[in-house]
C-alpha cells in the first residue's frame, strides 16, 4: 500500500511544524524520516497515521483519501518511542488488543498472537508483564502488537531511541530483516543518520518543517543537496571562503572548483568529510594546511585525529586508517600537513561580494 502526502502544512500556534510537505512512499518500501528535533518529522508521521490532522493538504493510502479518516479506521500499525505497552496486560493480551477490539474470534486471536510472538522470537514471554521485560523485548512486543491486525502501513516513531547502543544495533538489523520478510509499507522517524542509512530503502531529510532532500542512502551520502544535509550527516569539517574563476580560496588553502567558472567573487561554504582528509608528515605538492595534532582518539574502525590549523584558526577532525596511523605514529603536538581529497562547495545563491 503506497502512501502519498500532498502539500501538507501544520501549525501549532505560531510554530510552523510542517510547511507544504509532499512525499511519496512506494508500496512495500521502508522509508526513514531523518532530521533534528523540531524538524517536523514526528508531526509528519503522526499526520500519516491520523493521530494528528493536517491544517492543509491530503494524505492518501494507495488511491484512498484518508485525510479526514480517524486513526482507528485507517488500520495502521504505530510503534511508539517509549513502547506505550499496556502495563496491566500480559504480553499475550497486549498483542491481542488490536484483534479483540475488532471482535475477532478467540481461535483466530490465539493463532495470530502465537504467530506474531514467534515472529518477534518472544513466545516464551506470553504470560509476562511489560515491566518484566528488557527495553529491546518491550519494543519487539510493541512491534508485534502493531502488526497484529495486519495494518496497511507500519509507522515507527524513533523506535530505537530509548535503547542502549548494542540493543539498538541488533534491533535495527532485525527490523530490516523483518521488513524484507513482510514487505509492509513502513515509515520510521529517527534523528540518527547512521540508523536511517543502515535500515531504510529511502531517506527523507527534514529541517524546519520542510523536506531538504529525498533519495536513497547512497544518493544522499554522495550528493548532499545543500549545506544543511551535508552538515547534518555529520563527520564533516566546515570552512568559509569564496569562489572565483573555477578556484576556491579557503583561507590559505586553494582548491579547484570547476563548477564555478564565473569571474564574480562569491562567498562559499566548503565541507570536507573527516575521511576525505589526509594527514602527511611532509608537503607533497597538493594543496594542504599546516596543522598541529591536538588529540588522538584510537577508536574503531578508524583513528580520529583532532588537529588545529593556526593560520586558519580552525580545529579539524581527520579519520586515519589504522595502517596509516601505524606509519605516522602521530603524537599530540606534532606538526603535520592536512590535504583534502575531496571538497564539497556550496555557494550562497545570488550573493556576491
Amino acid at each position, binding site marked *: 500500500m503506497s502512501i502519498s502526502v500532498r502539500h501538507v502544512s501544520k501549525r501549532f500556534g505560531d510554530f510552523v511544524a510542517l510547511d507544504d510537505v509532499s512525499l511519496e512512499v512506494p508500496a512495500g518500501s521502508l522509508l526513514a524520516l531523518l532530521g533534528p528535533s523540531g524538524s517536523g518529522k514526528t508531526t509528519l508521521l503522526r499526520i500519516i*497515521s491520523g*493521530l494528528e490532522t493536517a491544517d492543509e493538504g491530503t494524505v492518501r493510502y494507495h488511491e484512498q483519501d484518508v485525510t479526514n479518516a480517524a*486513526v*482507528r479506521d485507517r*488500520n*495502521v*500499525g*504505530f510503534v*511508539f*518511542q*517509549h*513502547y*506505550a*505497552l*499496556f*502495563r*496491566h*496486560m500480559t504480553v499475550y493480551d497486549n498483542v491481542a*488488543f*488490536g484483534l*479483540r*477490539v*475488532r471482535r475477532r474470534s478467540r481461535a483466530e486471536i490465539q493463532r495470530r498472537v502465537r504467530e506474531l510472538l514467534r515472529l518477534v522470537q518472544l513466545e516464551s514471554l506470553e504470560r509476562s508483564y*511489560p*515491566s518484566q*521485560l*528488557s*527495553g529491546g523485548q*518491550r519494543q519487539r512486543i510493541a512491534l508485534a*502488537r*502493531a502488526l*497484529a*491486525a495486519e495494518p496497511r502501513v507500519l509507522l515507527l516513531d524513533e523506535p530505537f531511541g*530509548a535503547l542502549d547502543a548494542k540493543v539498538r544495533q541488533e534491533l535495527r538489523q532485525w527490523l530490516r530483516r523483518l521488513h524484507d520478510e513482510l514487505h509492509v509499507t513502513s515509515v520510521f522517524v529517527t534523528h540518527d543518520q547512521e540508523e536511517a542509512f543502515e535500515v531504510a530503502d529511502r531517506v527523507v531529510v527534514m529541517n524546519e518543517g520542510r523536506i531538504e532532500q529525498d533519495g536513497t542512502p547512497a544518493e544522499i551520502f554522495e550528493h548532499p543537496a545543500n549545506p544543511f544535509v551535508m552538515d547534518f550527516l555529520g563527520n564533516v569539517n566546515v570552512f568559509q571562503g569564496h569562489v572565483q574563476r573555477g578556484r576556491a580560496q579557503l583561507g590559505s588553502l586553494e582548491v579547484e572548483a570547476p563548477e564555478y567558472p564565473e569571474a564574480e567573487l562569491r562567498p562559499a561554504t566548503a565541507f570536507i568529510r573527516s575521511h576525505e582528509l589526509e594527514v602527511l608528515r611532509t608537503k607533497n605538492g597538493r594543496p594542504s594546511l599546516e596543522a598541529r595534532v591536538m588529540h588522538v582518539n584510537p577508536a574503531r574502525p578508524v583513528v580520529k585525529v583532532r588537529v588545529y590549523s593556526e593560520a586558519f584558526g580552525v580545529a579539524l577532525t581527520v579519520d586515519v586508517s589504522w595502517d596509516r596511523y601505524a606509519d605516522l605514529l602521530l603524537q599530540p603536538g606534532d606538526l603535520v600537513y592536512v590535504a583534502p581529497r575531496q571538497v564539497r562547495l556550496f555557494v550562497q545563491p545570488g550573493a556576491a561580494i
Partner: protein
Amino acid sequence: MRRLLVGAALTVVGLLVVVPLANVFAQALADGPIAWWHRIAHDPDTLHAIRLTLTVAPIAVVLNVLFGLAAAWAIARFRFPGRTLMTALIDLPFTVSPVVVGLLLILLFGRSGYLGPWLQAHDVKIIFALPGLVLATCFVTFPVVARELIPLLEAIGSEEETAAVSLGARGWQVFRLVTLPSITWGLVYGVILCNARAMGEFGAVAVVSGRITGRTDTVPLRVEKLFQDYDMPGAFTLASVLALLALVTLAVKTAAELKTRRELAAAKRPAATH
C-alpha cells in the same frame, strides 16, 4: 530533638484521637454488648437513621464517581477554555462551610426559594426529603474522587490511550480496557474517602433535612439528637457505630492508598530505561 517531636506528635494524636475514640467505645459498651445491640435494634428512629444513611451515601458515591471520572478525565486529558477555573471550582466544596452549602440549597429549592414554587406546583419534594439530603451530600463530597484521579491520570499520561486508539479501539473501549484498569485503586481510594465523608456529613445535611425524627435524620443527626435529649448511652451507641464504620473505612483506605501509590509509582517510573 527528634524524640521530643515524636513524643509531642504522639501525645497530640493520643489526646485528640485515640482517647476520645476509645471513650466512645467504652461508653457505648459500658453495660455490655447485649444492651448495646438492644439500643440499636429496638429503637425504630435509630434504625431508620441507619437505613437513611445507607441510602444517601451510596447514591452520593455513585454520582460522585460518575462526576469525578468525567471531570478528572476532562482536566487531565484536554486543554479547553475554563479548564483552570474548573480545576479551582472542584475544590470549592472543601473551602465553603457545609452550613453555607445547606443554606444555598434551601435558597434554591426551598418553599420560598427560586425554584420552590415550580417544584411545589409539580409536587417535587427536595428540601426536607431524600433528594435534598443526596444533593447536600454530593455537593460536600464531590471533590474527593476527582482530586484523587487527576494526578493519577496526569502521571499515567495519554500514551497508552493513544496506542489503544491507533490499534483501532473506540472511546469506550479505550476507557474500559486501558484507562480504568490503570486507575482502579485510585478510584477505590476515592470511593472509600467519598463514602466516609458522605456518611459522616453533618452541617449541610442538618440544614436541608429539617431534622425530622424517623424521617430525615441520618446517623450523625440522630447522634446529636440523642445527645441533646440526654440519652447518653443511646448517643454513644450510635456514635460507636459511626466510629466503627470509620475504622473499617480507614483500614480499606490504607490498603487502597498503598495500591494507589504503587499505581502512581508505576506510572512515574520511566518506561524506557532498563
